[in-house]
């Protein structure tokens, strides 16, 4: 934990320095601009420049990081006193599987659409990480995206990414046409039926 405290503070200090430098940048089109000339408190009588506030905030970040490092050297913060590892085996594995799963989920959205990616992610999580029965995992990973599809795409018309053109034309366009032609009561019935299927599968899995 002690080493992680140092490394994190140093990385954040470097980020602060970069942000200080970045705050002093001028507009791309102004070729005569002198770096850091926008961080003054009263530039030409028109008050602080656009770099003033971010520059001093980044400076505040840098000072905090130096303070954190000094505290770590003097062993005054709990992480710098701790002999425990920053992450034990379980935490590292969990971050890899959960964080990795989330990144893969995001990559899949662009390729196979939001709802299909949700189904894949739910199935991965429940079957692989949760070790739930196959039936419950499959039904949950189909019902959850179906509910979200009905809520967002159909009821709220907040359209989510649909992946490739082929998927959109073959699956989502006909499905959208069908569900949008239904009344609100029918949509509620679809919600209820899929919920009942989920409850039955949970019951069957428990038995």
């Amino acid at each position, binding site marked *: *934990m002690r080493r*992680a*405290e140092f490394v*994190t503070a140093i990385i954040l200090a470097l980020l602060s320095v970069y*942000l200080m430098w*970045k*705050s002093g*940048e001028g*507009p*791309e089109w102004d070729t005569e601009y002198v770096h850091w000339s926008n961080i003054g*408190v*009263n530039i030409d*009588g*028109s*008050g*602080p*420049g*656009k770099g*003033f*506030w*971010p520059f001093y905030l*980044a400076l*505040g*970040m840098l*000072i*905090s*990081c130096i303070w*954190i490092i000094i*505290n770590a050297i003097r062993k005054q*913060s*709990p*992480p710098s006193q701790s002999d425990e590892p920053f*992450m034990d085996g*379980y*935490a590292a594995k*969990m*971050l890899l599987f*959960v*964080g990795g799963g*989330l*990144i893969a*989920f*995001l990559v899949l*959205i*662009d390729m196979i659409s*939001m709802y299909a990616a949700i189904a894949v992610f*739910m199935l991965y*999580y*429940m079957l692989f990480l*949760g*070790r*739930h029965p196959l039936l419950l995992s499959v039904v949950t990973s189909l019902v*959850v*995206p179906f509910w*979200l599809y009905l809520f*967002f795409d159909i009821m*709220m018309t*907040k359209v*989510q*990414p649909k992946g490739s053109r082929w998927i959109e034309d073959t699956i989502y366009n006909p499905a959208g046409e069908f569900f949008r032609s239904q009344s609100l009561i029918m949509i509620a019935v679809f919600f209820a039926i899929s919920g009942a299927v989920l409850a039955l599968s949970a019951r069957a899995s428990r038995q």
Partner: protein
Amino acid sequence: MEIWDALYQGIWIALQPHNLGLAVIGVVVGLFVGALPGLGSVNGVAILLPFTFVINSMTADPASPMIFLAAIYYGAMYGGAISSITLGIPGASTAVATTFDGRPMALKGDADRALVTAAIASFIGGTVATVFFTGFAPFLSSVALDFGNPEIFALMLLAFATFIGLGGDDIPKTLFSICFGLLLATVGFDQISGEPRLVFMNEREQTALLTTFGVADAEASVPFFDSVGWFSRGIQFLVLAIGVYGIGEMIWTINASRYKITMTETQISFKRIMRGIIGMKDAWKGTTIGSLLGFFVGILPAAGATPGSLMSYGVTKMTSRNPKSYGQGNPDGVAAPEAANNSASTGAMLPMMTLGIPGSPTTAVLLAGMVIWGLEPGPRLFEDRPEFVWPLIGSFYISNIIAVLVNLAFIPLFLWVLRMPFTILAPVIFVLSIVGTYAAYDNMFDVWLMVLFGIGAYLLRILDYPLAPAVLAVVLGATAEEKLRQALLLSDGNFEVFYNPFFDRDGKGQEWWIAPITTWIAVILITMPIILWLFRKVRGQHNEA
């Protein structure tokens, strides 16, 4: 008399079927969110904020989305006790103190009594605080109407100073968190000069990066991510809030609980509920202290419901004739924190609604929601938008009644839901966070950024970096900068406008006391740790001598 008329009208509007329905749904969602370990009011409100866009577009009533979110906030305060008592794990940080006596009561077979005590104390705490709110809010907002730029900036400085002086977290890490949050709010276009600032990539560089990572047809993909430039639109508040509270907290809870949670068997029936209500006579002291102390602690920016409930527990124990019974299953020890966390959650709404300065991370999310719905939180809200303010206050009363009834009636259902494995709940929360962020901004870049913030928040949390100040800072950032720069523009760059009451602001020789007093209190709070350190050092030398 005016207040009572307005309140009567407000309660009447809050009782309209659509608002009543939203309050019921909000309370039920809040109870679940509060009861589920790892999720608290802030997680629920942040993850569900994008869902209120549809409420806003469907109802003509401007208060409806806020009534829904405020009901979630209330419900979560009630719900936190359920898991504290039956699981021994606080459903939210606000219910930590409830475990001290609630869990021992459950282990002694008195779980039903503890649950009823928690529900009734929450109701009393929430109602007392709402009465205070109704009395204080119009007065405070009328005083705040005279505030200028220096006063508002000084108040914001005070809000951040309380995190440093009273927050109880590592000071440099809190300072870092505040500065980082404020800096995130500066990304995008500068609101005064209109020039881009801290925009890390232009469109050409984005296309090059996507091509490097093998994204086929990178030029076509850029508009999908954002045609203007990834950072040009700024970093949206919800991206940080959902990342921290939806992704980061969830990963943290998975690691802390390791999916292993065991529940105490609880029997509940009408007879047992009645027994619990009669048993409230043993918990009146905790309820009274919690209701009063919770409200005033809740008003303080860095405090909120968690310290409010811990302090109320401490004070009730300290003033008890039998302090040793605390921690063994004393009903007062359940009532005090539960009354306090509900009372504090209403207290935290007071500075948010009247001054535009949130008192807790949850109210910061609510404030951001109000901005998204086109409202301007602050003193003018009471003058300009009474059709929003009074129905909302009316809904506080209604939601409290709904929450206590739903809580008592459906305790068995909540206990059933709490048996849901965490390995089903966690992916559902992740999915809601991602879908919600996309629905809010129609942009995959924001979704990526949200997940990266979440993973970063988890890593920083392991090292004790407090993240609530960053969330608060990113909400207040734009206003804080605007007020600071406008104040400095009017004073020709002279900082005396903030700390010198005799500084001649308008050339009329008038004295201005509010900003200097606020600034000096903030300075004292910021330097408090150094003052205390010096005090201890001097006292140590004195004792040695």
